[in-house]
């Protein structure tokens, strides 16, 4: 199957994000599911559609062969699937990720922060640096896009003024 219409691709990626949000709900990660649904399926789709509004809506035909991309995709996929065999069984309490700092958070979060949602206390308090970094990433990305899009427009206008005078 080949989808050349980028509009269809954007809608499909939105559908994919919603499916992923459902998967995350099944995994009991409600906070992440909410982010995935609102960012992945909501805002990203809107921004991608806005991008399509600025560019062409069909994919340009590639002149290169498809064998190398196919090979890379198959090898990467096989390596990822192969590496899952080394993961601990799904949902086990013996997994290394549950043995490091997670028990401390679960036991002491309510006493130390009086916040019942451990996800919130880990995000905003115990791992405050990470969240500050994330916020700075969003800030940087936003400033970058605004500089690119609005800066170019100002330059266009300046060129127009110079050209007309």
């Amino acid at each position, binding site marked *: 199957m080949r989808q050349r219409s980028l509009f269809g691709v954007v809608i499909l990626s939105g559908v994919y994000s919603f499916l992923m949000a459902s998967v995350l709900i099944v995994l009991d990660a*409600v*906070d992440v*599911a*909410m*982010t995935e649904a*609102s*960012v992945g399926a*909501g*805002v990203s789709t*809107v*921004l991608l559609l*806005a*991008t399509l*509004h*600025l560019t062409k809506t069909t994919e340009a035909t590639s002149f290169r062969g498809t064998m190398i991309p196919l090979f890379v995709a198959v090898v990467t996929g096989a390596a990822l699937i192969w590496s899952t065999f080394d993961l601990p069984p799904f949902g086990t309490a013996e997994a290394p990720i549950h043995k490091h700092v997670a028990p401390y958070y679960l036991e002491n979060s309510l*006493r*130390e*922060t*009086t*916040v*019942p*949602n451990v*996800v*919130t*206390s880990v*995000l*905003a*308090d115990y791992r*405050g*640096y990470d*969240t*500050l970094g*994330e*916020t*700075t990433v*969003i*800030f940087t*990305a*936003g*400033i970058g*896009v*605004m500089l690119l*899009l*609005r800066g170019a*427009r100002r330059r266009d206008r300046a060129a127009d003024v110079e050209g007309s005078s």
Partner: protein
Amino acid sequence: MSLDLILRIGTKLILPFILLFALYVQFHGEYGPGGGFQAGVITAGMVILFAITFGLRAAKRIAPQALVERMVPLGVLIFAGTGVLGLLLGHNYLDYGPLAHDPAHGRVLGIFLVEAGVLVTVSGTMTALFYAFAERGR
């Protein structure tokens, strides 16, 4: 304009509930799922829905571009400022304990401030990005 009557009325009906849900997600994030990031995106989604239905100019009346673009650095400043507050009170950076007499209450206050900062930055950035894209298309 009579053709999109359903869209216009439907949007007007649903907007306050979207905003209310965003506030709920923001201020209930300590008890249920959610927090500043999700609430910011939902708030921006409200503005974007308004802009799609009523046009960019109407959206800029309820969320002025200058304000939205100032919100982008303001949120990071709130977040980092909360951290500096901990420094000034003689503790580590981003340690919210000393913000109140009881360290646990200080942490609640700190989490509240930090989440507010995330909300401001995320909603501002998403709306500003949409404005930047939408303006460019004309």
